[in-house]
């Protein structure tokens, strides 16, 4: 199998500025207070993902998951280290695509598809399928600003999942969808996984990670804390409750398990 995503010593640091205006900064400097602080959101992370693997990226809030995903997706560039990917990338970053609130769902869909690299013909061919999947109905022609957060996340997911990508990134996609939609997303993502595409899935739901992924990567304060077997990773994060520990397959057996659908987020 070929490498799909290769990260080598990737570090990304952010600078937090406490003051933004000249006045505030002068006052702070005069009082000898700190005006900014730099921290590593992602700190010296290296790993290699093979084509067709499905990775569950886990970690507490603020551990650098979204930043890492943004770098893999190409929105951000690492400060040091390198990231290489193979093929087209599609996916969602932090529940929701880059939508323009003033444009209609239709315009946003077409624009979003084009940014993800779909051609005009490809978009036309898949348009109905995408709208059907998102279950937006007539609302497709109203402004995205008037959508609920769930609806816009659905549309974003629907567009991204229909792109013929080699790598699919999903960042907490199931956090806002309702239960039937979550089930549909998981099924679709399984389809993506089984078609040999690389899947990168961020979730706090141990059950769905167990169902979807073949490997878990855990970030802790930006550092790679764990990389390996799914159940061990979940145990590492202490996301397993006692019943799961005894019967790791309990969640998978019950298709409607809340945990599996990400209801514990």
């Amino acid at each position, binding site marked *: 199998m*070929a*490498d799909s995503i*290769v990260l080598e010593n990737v570090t990304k640091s*952010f600078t937090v500025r406490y003051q933004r205006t000249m006045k505030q900064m002068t006052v702070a400097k005069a009082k000898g207070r700190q005006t900014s602080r730099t921290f590593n959101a992602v700190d010296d992370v290296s790993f290699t993902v093979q*084509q*067709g693997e499905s990775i569950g990226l886990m970690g507490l809030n603020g551990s650098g998951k979204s930043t890492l995903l*943004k*770098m*893999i*997706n*190409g*929105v*951000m*560039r690492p400060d040091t280290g*390198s*990231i*290489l*990917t*193979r*093929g*087209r*990338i599609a996916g969602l*970053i*932090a529940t*929701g*695509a*880059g*939508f*323009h*609130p*003033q*444009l209609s769902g239709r*315009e946003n869909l*077409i*624009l*979003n598809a*084009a*940014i*993800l*690299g779909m*051609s*005009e*013909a*490809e978009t036309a061919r898949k348009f109905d399928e995408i709208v059907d999947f998102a279950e937006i109905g007539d609302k497709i022609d109203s402004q995205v600003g008037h959508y609920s957060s769930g609806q816009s996340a659905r549309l974003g997911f629907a567009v991204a999942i229909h792109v*013929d990508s*080699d790598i699919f990134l999903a960042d907490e996609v199931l956090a806002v969808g309702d239960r039937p939609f979550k089930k549909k997303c998981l099924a679709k993502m399984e389809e993506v996984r*089984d*078609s*040999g*595409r690389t899947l990168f899935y961020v979730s706090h739901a141990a059950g769905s990670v167990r169902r979807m992924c073949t490997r878990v990567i855990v970030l802790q304060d930006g550092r790679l804390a764990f990389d390996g077997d799914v159940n061990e990773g979940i145990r590492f994060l202490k996301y397993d409750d006692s019943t799961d520990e005894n019967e790791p397959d309990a969640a998978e057996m019950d298709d409607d398990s809340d945990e599996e659908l990400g209801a514990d987020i």
Partner: protein
Amino acid sequence: MTDVVLPTGETGIASERPLPPLQAPSANNGLLAVFQRRYLLKLLVRREISARYQGSFLGLLWSYVNPLSQFAIYYFIVGEIFQLHEDIPNFALHMFSAIVIVHFFTETFNAGTRSIVRNRQIVQKMSMPREMFPVASMLVSLYHVGPQLVILFVACLLNGWTPDVEGILALVLGLLLIMVLGTALALLFSAANVFFRDVQSFVNILTNLVRFGVPMIYSYAMVDERFGSLAQYYLLNPIANAVLMFQRAFWIGTAPDPEELARTDLPSHLLQRGVIMLGVSLVILAIGQLVFSRLEKKIPERL
């Protein structure tokens, strides 16, 4: 980009076609990539055209109300109060041909500077050449130049204008000059605006300066007369050159004796100057791209 229909069978699709190369996911950027992805550019331009005046009753008409109101104000103040009608033949056309090109520049500059901040929802979440946004702003402004040119055309024809080859060349050169220069400055300032929103206020002041730094409400003949040999420094302003180019294309042709007017009211070697200025603008564009690429790395996190 690719149009390949992927066979999504149960066995891996990867094995059924040649593997794409491993590369940095953010590598496909730069102005070149903007023009490789023309479909996306077209969508952005179309979207911008419909979104620029969204929620306003007059909508697209604002693009014409704005230059027309400027025209009316200047015509009244400069023409009626300062009595410049007398000194400049066909003063209205002198001013209007300048307003069209100056308005193109200021719109590109203003909208371009705001473009990345305005589109932050997309910039923060999707990977694409970010040069798209300033370039799209320029193209949207160019789109509005069309109808204004038609109005200018008709107005000139009504005033006994006969188009000539040199004039058409000057028109094309003037437009090209502002397209390149506008894009270059939009690139530079749109990236800077992400770091300090003060930039867009500063750009407002600059555009005000631009209006008075070009021979619009006064003629080049006056600059030449008052400044003497210093007038050559006035001509270092590329926008002033573009304005003169437009006046060469339209206003000159409406005079009873165009050649005489061109001799007295325009600098010599106008077209050559235009070509040089176009070259200068291309250099500024290259610098703009370099600076943009440098700043771009920090754009998503500073938005």
